[in-house]
């Protein structure tokens, strides 16, 4: 539901990291990593990004989202595994003392320019 404000943040952050010599070069692709546990829905983000990108360096560029699986680590036995369903309990020793290792990402990775 906050995808529009996130889209605007992305454009601001990514825009600020374009070096002077590439200013004006059309952007082809913006690469993101979004964890599956995050409260951002990729489809809505793409929709908002396309609107927010109008009249910026990113107008018409492709938002490429890599979804990151939720990987957990048991703090009792060090076992690591990936979950598809919301169940935060060690599937090896049954402990509920769990750390989320990945799946919370909301990262801007890189910008690809047209040659």
């Amino acid at each position: 539901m906050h995808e529009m404000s996130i889209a605007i943040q992305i454009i601001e952050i990514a825009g600020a990291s374009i070096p002077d010599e590439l200013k004006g070069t059309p952007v082809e692709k913006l690469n993101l990593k979004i964890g599956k546990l995050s409260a951002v829905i990729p489809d809505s983000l793409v929709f908002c990004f396309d609107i927010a990108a109008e009249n910026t360096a990113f107008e018409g560029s492709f938002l490429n989202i890599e979804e990151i699986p939720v990987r957990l680590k048991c703090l009792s036995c060090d076992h690591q595994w990936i979950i598809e369903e919301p169940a935060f309990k060690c599937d090896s020793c049954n402990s509920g003392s769990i750390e989320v290792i990945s799946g919370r990402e909301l990262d801007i990775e890189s910008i690809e320019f047209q040659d």
Partner: protein
Amino acid sequence: MEIKVAQKMLDANDEMARHNRLLFKEKNVFVINIMSSPGSGKTTLLEKTLGRIQPDINCGIIVGDICTKNDAERILKTGAPAIQINTDAFGGECHLSAGSIEKAASDFNLEEMDLLIVENVGNLVCPAEFDIGEDVRVVVLSVTEGEDKPLKYPLMFRESSLALLNKIDLLPYLDYDIGLTKKYITRINAEMPVIEISSKTLEGFDQWIEWLKNRIIQKK
């Protein structure tokens, strides 16, 4: 041609949250972020909680809402200073950001405050993502909502330090399976305590107030 960016989308918010946390620590203010769906009873919980802890504990309240001022007016009647943040900038923003808290907090006298309670916007999704510089997050779930809410909103239940199961005065009139809700909460966050309360009859309030006071003391 590809250039690395390697930055977090929420960098600006997280930076502001760090700034808030430092400020609250310096002023010795304990900050609690209360989150729930609309109508779970956050404002009622606040009114009743303030009735129990004032004037021993000096409180300030920030209420986030999409557009009305009703909640702040309800809180002001308890005698606590309250500030309403309306988040309608984008046709209804769905969470409070660290920046909006920083602005609201600057209108309080933090020197004289022990406890700042933030009632977040009614929503179980987005507020979980935005750090505001709080010490603890409390999720409120009422027994008129589905038992499976913890499974549908896992991030919220992972990120909270306490779950309050509210409106238990209504249990005799419902087919609600409170054991099932607790089982689902355990599946998401086995280490989080759950306290059953009624903000109407004040059942369970002793336990909740004790939890709150302990956490405030721990910070000092």
